[in-house]
Structure formats: structure tokens, C-alpha cells
């Protein structure tokens, strides 16, 4: 199967390329026209095939692509992938504007290809267990979801970069219930740049009365989370997509040791994507979920501007 990784802009793009390189039956091609120097240095490390232009990648006729560009270029790449009938795994969020996300969903629908979201925390047996448990009523009636995801500082604002992974977890457990109302506040204390919010709190109310409230600011150290608490009227359950397996002290960094635990969720996600590319039956969030997340993020930006809750249509 021919799979292309489109850009190394996203911090997980190299991980995806490495996992795909090692997957049996995958022919991998990479490109990074937005930053050729970055692209070259990554493929030198990986030993992966590389071409210089988007045109060259699409002329190669990939059967599946992973879109890991800056968010502003994702729509164009997804639409071009749909044109060549390639299944798409796209980083979150799909876009900043709902109109762009809608166009991406429509393009993939029309082409008959799957649009899947790169939201690793939604994959794996641990989260599946949480999801089943909630469906089976272990928390009673679910009322509230509190979550935190602190990504490392990136070019984009915290809302654009970090909210989506949490919203995907909520969306999955709520079976795609669209949001009714969004309230958000943000600041730029850590970034020092007014246009790049480095802290954001978002509260979402759903038509069923459920409430999700998330903290999606930048992390000063390593990324933290996603960590989500599902609260019901009988019990509450925590899900940590990034648990610590081992702690201790590391002399080399003169800091705390953190050995990650849990499953390799990127690997689980990619196997699901590749495995479902023939039949369109992936288990993770799809383009419609991505569109719902973008609508919430867009409303969150509006709420930050107005200081009031925003109804989502």
C-alpha cells in the first residue's frame, strides 16, 4: 500500500513516518515543501523516501495520506488527496474555520474516501474500556466531563492546537452529540504575544444538559495529558492517555524522570487507519467529528472576543 506523509510541521509527523516505515506492506513517501530543510533532516534520520513537491507526491498516486502540515494548509492537502482517491488521516483540528472543515468533509465524501482524525488518545483498549464502562452505566448518568491537555508551545494558539484532542474524547463518549453552547476565556501570559493565546479554558454545554470544561493551555515542560474525568451521578472515572510508568531522578537532565506508560497510541491509530483504508470502517473519530470540534473551537474564539457564551448552530 502506498502511503504519503504530507509535511513534518506537526510534532508527531516524524513518529508517524517512522511507524509507517516499519509497518509491513507499506510503501512510504514523504515531502515537506513548506520547510525543505526540516524535511531533509527528518528523512536523513529516518531513511525514508522523499520528494520535493506536493505535485510529485500526488502524481505518485498514494492510496492513503497522513496530513501533518500547519493547520492553514490542511484543507488544500485533504482536497488534493480526495482528488486522487486517497484515504486521509488528518491532524487535529481540520481547520480553524468551520467552512473549511465542511469543505474537507464534503470532498472526502464525494470521492468516497475515509477522512479520519489523528487523535491518538481516542484509540486503544484503555479508552475503549472507559467508553464501554460509561455506556454500561458505571458512572450512572454521565453529567460532566473535565479535561486537561497541555501541549508544548507551538506557533498556533492554545485553542487551535490543544482543544481538539479533548473535544474528540468528549465527542466519542457523547456519540457525536453536537454542542449547544460554548464559553471560553484565554490569555497570552506565557506566550507574551497577544495573537497567540497560551492559556485557554473552554466550557461546552450539550443539548442533553451535559457539560464539558477543558483546560487546553500550553505546557511549560513536556506535554501533559490528555487527562479526562468523566463524572456521573454515581461515580467518576479518570482516563489518562499519557500515564507515567516509572518515576525517579535523571542525572543527565538534572530533572524528574518520566517513563511513559500505557499503549503506543500512535501505533494503534495508524494500524487502525491503514487496516480500515480498504473497507472504510475505522474505529476512531471521523471528519464529521472533526467538523463538530472545529465548530466548537470557532465558537470558543468568538466567546473569547465577546466575553459571553456563544450558541452553536
Amino acid at each position, binding site marked *: 500500500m502506498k502511503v504519503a506523509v504530507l509535511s513534518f510541521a506537526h510534532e508527531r509527523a516524524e513518529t508517524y513516518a517512522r511507524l509507517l516505515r516499519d509497518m509491513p506492506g507499506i510503501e512510504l513517501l514523504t515531502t515537506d515543501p513548506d520547510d525543505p530543510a526540516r524535511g531533509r533532516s527528518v528523512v536523513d534520520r529516518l531513511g525514508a523516501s522523499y520528494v520535493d513537491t506536493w505535485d510529485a507526491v500526488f502524481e505518485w498516486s498514494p492510496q492513503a495520506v497522513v496530513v501533518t502540515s500547519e493547520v492553514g494548509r490542511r484543507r488544500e492537502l485533504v482536497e488534493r488527496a480526495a482528488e486522487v482517491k486517497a484515504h486521509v488521516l488528518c491532524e487535529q483540528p481540520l481547520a480553524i474555520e468551520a467552512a473549511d472543515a465542511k469543505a474537507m468533509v464534503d470532498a472526502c465524501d464525494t470521492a468516497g474516501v475515509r477522512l479520519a482524525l489523528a487523535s491518538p488518545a481516542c484509540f486503544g483498549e484503555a479508552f475503549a474500556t472507559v467508553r464501554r464502562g460509561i455506556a454500561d452505566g458505571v458512572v450512572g448518568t454521565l453529567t460532566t466531563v473535565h479535561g486537561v491537555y497541555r501541549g508544548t508551545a507551538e506557533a498556533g494558539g492554545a485553542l487551535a492546537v490543544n482543544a481538539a484532542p479533548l473535544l474528540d474524547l468528549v465527542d466519542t463518549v457523547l456519540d457525536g452529540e453536537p454542542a449547544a453552547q460554548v*464559553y471560553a476565556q484565554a490569555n497570552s501570559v506565557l506566550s507574551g504575544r497577544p495573537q497567540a493565546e497560551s492559556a485557554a479554558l473552554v466550557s461546552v454545554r450539550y443539548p442533553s444538559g451535559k457539560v464539558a470544561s477543558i483546560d487546553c493551555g500550553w505546557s511549560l515542560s513536556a506535554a501533559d495529558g490528555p487527562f479526562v474525568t468523566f463524572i456521573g451521578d454515581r461515580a467518576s472515572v479518570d482516563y489518562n492517555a499519557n500515564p507515567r510508568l516509572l518515576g525517579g531522578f535523571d542525572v543527565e537532565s538534572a530533572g524528574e524522570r518520566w517513563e511513559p506508560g500505557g499503549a503506543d497510541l500512535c501505533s494503534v491509530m495508524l494500524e487502525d487507519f491503514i487496516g480500515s483504508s480498504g473497507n472504510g470502517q475505522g474505529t476512531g473519530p471521523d471528519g464529521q467529528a472533526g467538523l463538530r470540534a472545529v465548530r466548537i473551537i470557532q465558537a470558543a474564539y468568538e466567546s473569547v472576543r465577546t466575553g459571553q457564551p456563544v450558541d452553536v448552530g
Partner: protein
Amino acid sequence: MRRLEVALIGAGLIARLHLDAWIGTGAAVRVFSDDGRAADLAREAGARAVGSLAEALDGADAVDICTPTGSHHEIAMAAIAAGVGIVCEKPLAASTAEAEEIVDAAERAGVRLYPAHDVRFAQPYARLHELVAAGRLGAGSVGRFYFAAYHPRPWTGHVSAEAGGILTDQMLHGVDLAYWVFGDVVRVHAYYQGDIAAPAPEGAVATGTAVLTHASGALSQVVSRWTATPKPPVRVAFHVSGTGGTVRYDSEWPQEVRVADGEAGTFGYAGESVFTTEMREFAQAFAGGPEPRLGARDALAAVRITQAAAKSAWTGRAVELPVKGAAA
């Protein structure tokens, strides 16, 4: 030094905790309660019961108001008129207007007024505040303050849904800490779910979720819950970040002593009770010592913010709070 004379009003659970703490400071305590329970409480703790509010206030250095919130205003105003210092269980009053009246009257009369926001006397929060005040966190960015507890008894009394339930009750803890750490609050938004009006049955569950915007630009998420079971009976946690780093705490982390396995009943060790620390600090202030870590303005701020949270949850709008001398 003359013994501090304290008039304790009320005889419920909080009154009992405060009474033990006052006795521990060496104060002489007279207890008055209009529900007939004062004599038993006084006898158990080695205090004396009196028959009226006037008798309780007569000659007292301070009154400690531990009655239901609705009666705080009347008792506080009587104490102020009598020139008696005040300790008042949170919240100071059932409405912002009443709280303002009490604080204004106390300031005009030169009467000391200390709200019993006991969590400020718990070590994790006190240390957090020290770190922030010393500039160790730099400019504040985001705080998350989490409180969850099991309420062991049915809810009595009659409180309407509009009054805000947990938002004006248990959430005062988290709101007070957010305000202590990050300062004035200019905007409040809150959602409230679960049993909202009293009376409510034992084991009533509720979740309040508030977002506070501080005048400095810092943000706080305050979460307050009544849980369905007493497992654990109380859970508190926070995570606070700024340009200088982060501080976090979770009451689930073991401290000096814990039961490692097996059933050991109520055995445990939690250090000095927060009420002991609190009443000692108040007693020293009433005796002319240094001012305690909080005062009348903090009581008022906590009422304003929690009332704004209740209003937000009721109206579905964010509520702006004007702060004197601060840019909104």
C-alpha cells in the same frame, strides 16, 4: 494577658469544630443557640451556655457566627452595634448586598471582621500562596482548583435553584483560593448540574464548574462537587501555572502517615486541625497581634464571586464584576 472572651453562636457541626479550636487557644467561650442545643455542646467542650444573643455579646471580645447563612447579617449587625469583633462562618451573607452592608458597617465602626475561610489555613494552600506571593510562579497564567466531598446528611432548609446550590456553598472554597492566588475577578461564568435546591436527600450529587477571569488576565477553573459516595470523603487538588513554573497538589498523595493496607477504621494523622491554626491566628489579632491572613474584604469578594457564579448559571450569561481601580 486577659483571657479572650468569645461568644459562639450556633450549635451545629461547624460550631462544634470552632468551639474545640477556641478552647484550644485558651479562650473562654459562651455558647448561644436558638435551637436548644447550646447547653449540650457547651457542657461537652467545657464552655458555658447562655440564654440570649444579647447575653452572649455582653462583654465579649469576639463573636463567632456559626448559624445558618440567612441569620449571619442580623447577628453580625448586632455585634457591630455592640462593638464586638466578628468571626463569621462562610459565606458571610446570603447576598452581596447583605455582605456589603456588614463589611461597610464593620469598617465604619472599626470592628474587626474575619471570615472563617478555613482552607486558607490548610498547609498546601498556604504554601501555594507563599510561593505566588514571593514571585516564584512569575506572572499567573491558569489555575485549576478542585474540591469534591460527600455530604453525609440530607440537605435541610429551603433554598431555591436560583440561589445557586453548590456554587454559593462549597464552591466558595475554590473561588476564595483562586482570588487569594490571582487577585480580583472581573468576569465569571458557571454551569451547575445535579441537585440544586434544598431540601435534598442524603447522597445528593452536584457538580459546579466555573471559569473566573482575573483582573491580571490570569484564568481560573473552579470545580466543586458533591459526590455520590464517601469514597474518598474529601478530595482536593490544584494545578497552578505561571511564567515561573507550575505548582500542583492532590490530597490523594500520602503525607506522613497513611494506612498502607487493611481496615484500620478512623485511624490517621492529618497534622494540626485547620480550625486550630485559624482560631489561633484570629485570637492573636483580637488580642492586638498581627492581622490574620484574611479579612472583611476577602469575605466580600468571595460572596460577590460566588453570587456571580449563581447568576451566571441561572441566566446562562457570563457576569461582569466591576473592580475599583482595575482595567476590565
